């Protein structure tokens, strides 16, 4: 009986280890917020971001993605890809990520390019420059490795259609 009990913690430990390796060593979190105007006691107004649970058509949603290296080793070639949520459109010029290169896709994530180089290929062979409403994905490519313990963030805004 004693032997049998000892096996279970071992098994759990090995399960936990495999889960950790599957998850890698970056913890990534997406937060949806909306801007709110707050009036202070002295009457001054300021804009703050407040967590959003519900929205209306025409409203803007601010998405912030934070990624933290929770492992023991540096993470290289970090690429953060965000589909533009369904029923929303990307707000031109809103994507921002310190220390990242910014790329977009207008073809469902098959190809990515900088905003000024992104094209839309029509089924009839026509080619035109992509507009922000064409964007399907926003990608942030970290220029440097993410060292253990380091946290980076990226942000973009969308408009509810």
């Amino acid at each position: 009986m004693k032997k049998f009990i000892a096996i279970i913690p071992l098994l759990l430990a090995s399960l936990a280890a495999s889960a950790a390796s599957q998850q890698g060593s970056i913890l990534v979190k997406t937060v949806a917020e909306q801007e709110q105007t707050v009036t202070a006691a002295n009457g001054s107004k300021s804009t703050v971001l407040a967590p959003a649970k519900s929205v209306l058509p025409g409203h803007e949603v601010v998405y912030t993605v934070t990624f933290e290296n929770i492992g023991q080793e540096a993470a290289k070639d970090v690429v953060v890809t965000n589909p533009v949520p369904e029923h929303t459109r990307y707000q031109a010029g809103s994507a921002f990520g310190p220390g990242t290169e910014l790329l977009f896709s207008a073809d469902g994530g098959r190809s990515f390019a900088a905003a000024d180089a992104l094209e839309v290929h029509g089924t009839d062979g026509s080619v035109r420059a992509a507009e922000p409403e064409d964007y399907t994905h926003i990608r942030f490519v970290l220029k440097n490795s993410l060292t253990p313990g380091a946290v980076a963030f990226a942000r973009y805004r969308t408009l509810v259609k």
Partner: protein
Amino acid sequence: MMQSDERGRYAAPVRVRVRHRSAALPTLLALVLTAFAGVAHAATTPAGTVIQASAEVSFVVGTQAVTVRSNAPTLTVNQLVDVAAGALMVAVPVQPAEASLSVAFRVVNTGNAPETLRLQLTTAVAGNLFDALPHPPALYLDSDASGTLTGADAPYAPGGNDPVLAAGASVVVFALVDVPAGLADGTRGRLELSARVEQASGAPGTIFPGAGSGGVDAIAGLSGGVAQAGTDLIVSGVDVALVKRATVVDSAGGSAAQSGARIDYDIVVQVSGRSSVHGLVIADPIPASTRYVPASLQLDGVSLSDAADSDAGTFLATAAQVQVSLGDQPAGATHHVHFSVLIN
């Protein structure tokens, strides 16, 4: 009565100005046909829709490539309560003692969920020189979607057959009124139609918790859930009818309303009634997303120059509209105005 036959999404409002010499004061009538038909509403996200976002992160640790996903915060789309209304004509020329005059309004649900609308006609409007007399039951719904009042159209009973409009949908409502006798030319009487979302109308931004479809919050939009539209009945012994037709010619010889395609507009102007109209001016704004084809303006098949000069026609680039001055026109006169635009 003024009529319009506008086709296609590039139908533009036509404006007619009539100057009455017979009236005590020179009267300027602005008759505007609002091109409600064909105004494409951008698809609004329906109430109750759940919007999800998540990020995917890929990276390399040592030699191992790893991909992880973030959580996916969800947002529920609330119910936007918004309604708009417009008179199909800003002003309606009427005759004294005219009976059973129908005046058309259009009510549009500009929100993102179905709404039940309560309609009300007001004939006693502040500032009126005469009040039209509602001809019971006063309001009719355009049940057969013909755009004119017919025997198939249902009389409206408040609370009985309040129209239920899907998001983006609209309904034409007719007011049926009589004009009092003994009115002088130029006398004005205003009619107003209001459409109200009974369940959720209030100051813009008012929240009605859980009142939306599927239990989401309903929120009063900029209209506050109430729309009002008015039209002036103007007593006049003369009537100008406009019929506008649009023909689309694309570069392939077809009729697709695509970029680069040309739209030929033909406006038929008909004067009827008992007297003459003085200083008749047809003004037609170029539709949004199109540009005027230089030197395309014609009156009765004769080309008119675009410049403001001795001929009747002008293209006003600053106002983006064509204008044709027809001057004095007797009842029975008919004229054709033609011009073309290109779709940008």
